[in-house]
């Protein structure tokens, strides 16, 4: 029963968070951090489908995030359409990119996919950075003032927070349904051993490709939400390698291949990140990434399962210890 209680606490906490922090002095700031947290969780959940469940470690998810971020703002820039209209087109572009990358690379195993994703992401960043139509190195902007509610421009972070939270819930639901389906079992079989999966009749290439396309579609939604909230994207913030790094480390820290791992990762990382940024000022971002590198290395070396796995190992023992102590206390009192 514990996991069910855990998820009620998690979702309940996420639902009331903006209301609770609104009573504190820096409520606006904390609500904004909350919105980034939920957005970061969406990206990590999306990455988790292919990187966690299928075990194909993509280092280029910025491609799909960028597609989702650029297309809605382009729709505004070129046709004055509300960015929201561009979201489905962003998904189409992201899924097409996923097919383009997945088809050749999934013929090969192991590290090849990671290497290819990193190179393609860099290629796209360079092309976009030199392409005037999409704003080149400067980037592009969304509408500056809201024309109507459908431009989705709010002064407070709270509306964004709840939109993001709804998308996160949908993403988690899709992941949950996928993990329970035949498709989800195929993915885990592939992660455990591609050759064995193939010998059991799993169509490995097609399954991996489907997972990448699903992951790309959800990642592009995360990118769109980011672009709509910030109202601006440039090659670095939409397509830079650090965008991919953020998704990987969030998912891996919480627990890659688990349902709630990515959310737990975001709950740990995003506050940590805004704390280092506030404490260290301008040099903070550099320190943040030194820290990220160290965390990723330590995770890989000692606990590749992330926090969820750590909890499964330490948690029950800790509970037993606490219960035993409570028992002796009671015995002493009596």
């Amino acid at each position, binding site marked *: 029963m514990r996991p069910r209680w855990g998820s009620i606490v998690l979702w309940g906490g996420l639902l009331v968070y903006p209301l609770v922090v609104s009573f504190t002095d820096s409520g606006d700031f904390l609500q904004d951090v909350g919105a980034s947290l939920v957005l970061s969780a969406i990206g990590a959940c999306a990455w988790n489908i292919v990187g966690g469940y299928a*075990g194909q470690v993509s280092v280029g998810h910025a491609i799909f995030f960028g597609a989702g971020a650029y297309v809605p703002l382009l729709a505004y820039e070129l046709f004055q359409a509300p960015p929201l209209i561009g979201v489905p087109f962003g998904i189409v572009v992201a899924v097409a990119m996923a097919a383009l990358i997945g088809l050749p690379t999934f013929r090969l195993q192991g590290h*090849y996919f990671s*290497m290819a994703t990193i*190179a393609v992401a*860099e290629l796209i960043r360079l092309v976009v950075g030199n392409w005037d139509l999409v704003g080149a190195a400067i980037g592009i902007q969304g509408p500056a003032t809201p024309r109507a509610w459908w431009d989705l421009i709010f002064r407070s972070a709270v509306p964004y927070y709840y939109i993001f939270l709804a998308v996160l819930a949908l993403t988690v639901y899709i992941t949950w349904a996928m993990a329970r389906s035949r498709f989800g079992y195929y993915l885990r079989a592939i992660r455990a051993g591609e050759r064995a999966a193939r010998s059991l009749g799993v169509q490995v290439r097609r399954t991996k490709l489907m997972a990448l396309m699903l992951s790309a579609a959800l990642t592009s939604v995360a990118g769109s939400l980011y672009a709509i909230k910030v109202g601006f994207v440039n090659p670095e913030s939409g397509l830079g390698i650090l965008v991919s790094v953020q998704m990987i480390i969030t998912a891996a820290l919480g627990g890659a291949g688990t349902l709630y791992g990515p959310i737990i990762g975001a709950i740990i990382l995003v506050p940590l990140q805004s704390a280092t940024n506030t404490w260290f000022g301008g040099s903070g971002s550099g320190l943040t990434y*030194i820290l990220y590198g160290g965390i990723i*290395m330590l995770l*890989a070396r000692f606990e590749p399962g992330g926090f969820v796995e750590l909890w499964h190992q330490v948690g029950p023992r800790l509970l037993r210890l606490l219960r035993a102590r409570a028992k002796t206390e009671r015995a002493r009192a009596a």
Partner: protein
Amino acid sequence: MILLQAAVGGLLLGAVYALFSSGLTLIWGMMNFINFAHGEFVMLGMYVALLVTWVNLGPEVFGPAAAVALMLLGVIVYMGLIKHVMRGPMLSQILSTFGLALLLRYSAFYIFKSDFRTLPDTALSGTLSLGGIYVSRAQLLAGLLAGVLALGMHVLLTRTALGSRLLAVAEDRNAAMLMGIRPDRMQALAWGLSAASAGIAGALMAIAYPFSPSVGETFALTAFVVVSLGGFGSVPGAMIAGFIIGLVEALAGYLIGPIYKDVIVYGLFVAVLWIRPQGLLGTG
């Protein structure tokens, strides 16, 4: 004539690419492992050269100092990190060196700042004219030395007892163990050699080209392109591909424009991926 000049420059740089890429492919060939921090090793080699000039030593020390420092780092990385994740899940294999790359890159940013640097003028400055083609002395020296060292790596692997032992571990770890070879030592040595090749390549490039902490990412990608074009695990393939990429980069920079040379090179990588994923000299 200018085209020829660009081509010569490209080939000289290609020799350096060949050197550090053969280090990357050596690790891949031996243990099916991509080192995502390889570009950062090249970058560190450049900063070792910078540190050497700070203590007022001449360019003849750059190469050896970078080789020793990076070899040590390579062995430490293998012993402390790679050995433990090598047979673990794919996620930890990839995250291990990826995290290392981030750590090294941003530490370098933190320590050396993001400015581009050049080494102070040395005896190596000035240009030479080779039958009407002008090359800077530094570029010529870097290219020639790198070419020789890359060849030396190939000879070491194919013509010496040590090389046979390394390749034996690559072929079949258990069988090698039964022949009295300690695979751990050989793999540590391979990491040392690989990192040293990157370090020397970096030190050589530092003589001729400006550098900043961000170059590691570019060189990592260059090495990926070279290695996949040449064929994974093939040192001769990496050498040929290194020259090809150097040449393509220089010609693309001259004919299309310097901004697009990386676009062309990464585009070439995508093309290789689609058309011949095993590379020029790769198998399977």
